[in-house]
């Protein structure tokens, strides 16, 4: 089925449509009937206690995790068991990991140009120019020829963000991007993410940074035990939680 044809089925402007998604690890039911629609340009923050399935859910979106039941449509392409299909979706979705996952044997510049050169078949010169543009955006163009091991955690995470942006994605997924960072470096990464959000990138962000959620999120999703418990605007979520579970969670993360 062609991509154009599928887009005509999804007549609205939802860029991600998740319907009745279920996932098991063996017998363990990690995601239960997840339904989620994300509009183009929407900024979503996903929070919840550890083990609630929030990382697993966003990892399903670029098929780093398989799911057993339900359907998932990303930018008009339905996720099915097909290598070409999965690779097509991954080209549209950028991902930033908790532990950066830069390629340690390549320089920063090579980390950034690898995808454009090998996946998008861009000429090397063009890929390098794009890479330098994004390195300037994350404010570390002077580190281009260094190796990841020579950079601080905050710098590495900014490189990881730039690496995803070089692929020109429609959607950016962030999986706890600041959890492995020293307190002094969290801000420099969040600043880059705020900037990105202000430019209208569609973002799904698993994070415990509630300040970030308040500042940029259009919607906050609270998950627990593999379910979406509550979703609303940041104001409503923080001022007016509807469930006792969310109330408890908020009191625990905000009062320390």
């Amino acid at each position: 089925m062609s991509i154009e044809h599928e887009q005509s089925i999804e007549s609205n402007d939802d860029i991600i449509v998740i319907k009745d998604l279920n996932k098991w690890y063996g017998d363990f039911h990690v995601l239960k009937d997840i339904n989620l629609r994300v509009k183009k340009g929407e900024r979503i923050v996903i929070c919840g206690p550890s083990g609630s399935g929030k990382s697993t859910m966003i990892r399903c979106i670029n098929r780093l995790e398989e799911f057993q039941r339900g359907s998932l449509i990303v930018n008009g392409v339905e996720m099915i068991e097909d290598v070409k299909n999965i690779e097509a979706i991954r080209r549209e979705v950028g991902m930033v990991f908790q532990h950066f996952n830069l390629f340690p044997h390549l320089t920063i510049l090579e980390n950034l140009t690898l995808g454009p050169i090998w996946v998008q078949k861009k000429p090397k010169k063009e890929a390098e120019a794009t890479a330098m543009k994004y390195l300037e955006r994350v404010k570390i163009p002077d580190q281009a020829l260094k190796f990841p091991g020579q950079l601080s955690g905050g710098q590495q995470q900014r490189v990881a963000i730039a690496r995803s942006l070089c692929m020109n994605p429609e959607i950016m997924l962030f999986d706890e991007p600041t959890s492995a960072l020293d307190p002094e470096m969290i801000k420099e990464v969040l600043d880059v993410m705020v900037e990105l959000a202000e430019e209208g990138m569609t973002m799904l962000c698993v994070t415990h940074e509630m300040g970030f959620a308040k500042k940029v999120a259009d919607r906050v999703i609270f998950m627990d035990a593999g379910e979406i418990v509550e979703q609303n605007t940041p104001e409503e979520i923080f001022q007016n939680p509807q469930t006792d579970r969310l109330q408890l969670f908020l009191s625990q993360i905000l009062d320390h």
Partner: protein
Amino acid sequence: MKEFKPLPAQPAPNDTIGPIHWMKENLFSSPVNTIVTLAIIAFFATVIPPLVDWLFISANWVGNTQSACTNENGACWVFVIAWSKQFFYGSYPVEEIWRVNLCLIGLVAIIIASFKLNKDLRNKIAIPLFLLLPFISILFLDGSWIGLEYVSTDYWGGFTLNVLLAAASIIVAFPLSFLWALGRRSDMPFIRSVSIVLIEFFRGVPVLALFFMGSVMLPLFFPEGTNVDKLVRVWIVLTLFMSGYMAEVFRGGFQAVPKGQYEAADSLGLNFWQKTLLIILPQVIKISMPNILATFVMLFKNTTFLLIIGIFEMLSTTQTALTNSNWLGGHSTEGYLFVAVVFWICCFSMSMISNSIERKLDTSHKN
């Protein structure tokens, strides 16, 4: 507000540095340590002077025949010198030896080139040349296909044969073992089982048994009428043996690459082979380098086992020389010592090369 100024760094106290302090600390720190130190010094003092005398001072260096070894208290290096052509080149015709040398120079040149060239040229020129080298060498050494004088493999021999055979096996085994290791990790049951059987067979059977199988059993599998050269069969056996070991070395390397590297490659949309060759392989090689080298050294030394099936590599040439009627009478110490030293020099250089590759590959910049 008060300004924070870090304290200036001070030099280390004087009595904790310098050679005298080092000796006090390491050689004479306690009575037991002092006794051990003195005992070892005494041991070397009694052993080394006579050894040096036998090896060098009283040794016989000049002459062509056994009768030139007049000093009974010294080594007879005349034996080694007189046989050196056989030790290094076997029975290869003297006027054609340049061909063997050319192959060796080619090998060394490619190794040096892969160090000196930048990444692009290395991947595009040095690595393909490396893979072609065994086949080019065979063309040259044999000669009949390229208009040189034909030299049958019966005449190939000596230390250069050990080197070229080991190099040829390593070069072919490298990609093969990587594929086996990949196969062993594959999700596809058929590929996985075939890989496991191959790896475990060639790792589990002693190399000597494999050599006998290669020279006796392997011909049974070739179509009738074809006569595959003994040396080629040995090459195949060595390659497969090496691949079994290397595949396991690579598997360890695969397991040590963090899962996040695979996920990052996946999330960029790289396909399987791009991910494997661009992201995983370089890291696997870096992690496995010490073990890869240990396997190389093992294989290189194992080429001396070929004397069992009558291939004139260096050790069997030495044995032939020792039983030659003109040289009877106990030169075995000199002969075997020479073989040992030559092999040791080569293996030690391989260690040095491996160390420098490790340093070159180390981009972590951690102390």
